[in-house]
């Protein structure tokens, strides 16, 4: 469910790092909580995002939710396909529904993020 090669935030975003670039998305848990996603608002290529700050928002039928940047850097790509097919965020949140790609400006920030196991423990319902 939660790929080992991703790093996760407590706000339910993920980042997949390849070299100096991180692809960012929202987690399976996030889309499950939101329900049917109908709209996503994303930054533009060239924008700077800061770890922990809102980079955009995602709207489901019933609610709107901020998306927080898991890492800081410059936006170098935006997944334009989501504008016409926001439901991809429900169907493939860890894959085809990546939101943006960021050129990392502070790679050391990655150490503050959760592993797949830690994230799963974090979202597990308290017994």
């Amino acid at each position: 469910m939660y790929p080992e090669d991703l790093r996760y935030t407590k706000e339910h975003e993920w980042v997949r790092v390849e070299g100096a670039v991180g692809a960012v998305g929202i987690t399976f848990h996030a889309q499950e909580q939101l329900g049917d996603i109908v709209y996503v608002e994303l930054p533009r290529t060239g924008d700077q995002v800061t770890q922990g700050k809102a980079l955009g928002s995602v709207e489901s039928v019933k609610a709107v939710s901020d998306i927080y940047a898991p890492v800081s850097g410059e936006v170098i790509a935006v997944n334009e396909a989501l504008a016409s097919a926001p439901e991809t965020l429900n169907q493939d949140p860890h894959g085809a529904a990546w939101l943006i790609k960021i050129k990392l400006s502070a790679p050391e920030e990655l150490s503050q993020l959760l592993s797949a196991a830690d994230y799963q423990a974090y979202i597990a319902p308290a017994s």
Partner: protein
Amino acid sequence: MHAEAAANRTPLFEAHRRHGARMVSFGGWEMPVQYSGILDEHRAVRQAVGLFDVSHMGEIEIRGPEAFQLADFVTTNAVARLKTGQAQYSGLLYEHGGFVDDILVHKVAGDHYFLCVNAANQEKDYEHIRGVNHWAAEVEFASPRYAQLAIQGPRALTTLQKLTASDLSAIAYYHFRDGAVAGVPARIARTGYTGEDGFEIYVPPPEAPRIWDEVLGAGAEFGIKPCGLGARNTLRLEAKMALYGHEIHASITPLEADLAWIVKMDKGEFLGRAALARQREAGIGRKLIGFEMRGRGIARDGYEVFVDGRPAGWVTSGGPSPTLNKNIGLCYLPRELAEIGRKIHVAVRGQLVEAETVATPFYKRAK
């Protein structure tokens, strides 16, 4: 642990678990917000049939030789116009004209009225009605004796007909009949909160799980879906039906809420009448009106509305309309601005997004 550990549960709680519902707290009740997904459930109701657990709704019964006098005094609509076996939408108002609740009044007999009220308001409504009972009428808090299921959609009649000997096609819209469903005594009303044809049935709580399963079985050939409060909200918004706490509350009168049709000023004295008469005299300050978003963005409850760059009102309900594939909403505007075709702006998370006021309901089923 969830914060609302003390929430009430309906007799169908286990059934919701079994169907994989996501539960939320609503009006003090732990209720299903969705099963397969709001869009899927919404579509099922518009195109075929959906089943809702609305057992959180409250029931209050008024009986006795002067039951009519009390029912007519506490409600805005004309109870005298009801025939036995008929139901009407109505308002419970405070003396100052604001809503205590919006309710359905069913005439069971000349000396017996059955009220369906909102979950979060039921104790308040009961105390309110008792507090003005100056007649030989008995007021019963009857909620514990009823579970309520809503079967809604163009296939609702065919689905429910399989489970009852009552001729459902003979029950007109906003009428009801006491009969049996799946062998269990049931009050069967042709009412609903979705803008579709359908029925709301009141049954003994212990029998509700079995009836739930039987309705799902009967509707299987039409693709019946269990539906949650999420779809109930998108469906009622498209049909422009008011939701207590949003379009109406203690500081809103029916005249402001575009509900003058449930106020019968000529019926005689009723609670709130004087305040409404004064308001009509002085002029109604604000009015509820529908809008569609023209720019990119979704209006949500509580967002501010601007006209000509100035704050002018607020959104009472807003969201995507699955049937129309538009973003819609309802808002309050000063009366002189509340006219169809006006360009307005909604403050969507700090940005003014263009919208336009439109005629409502947003959706009306073909008869």
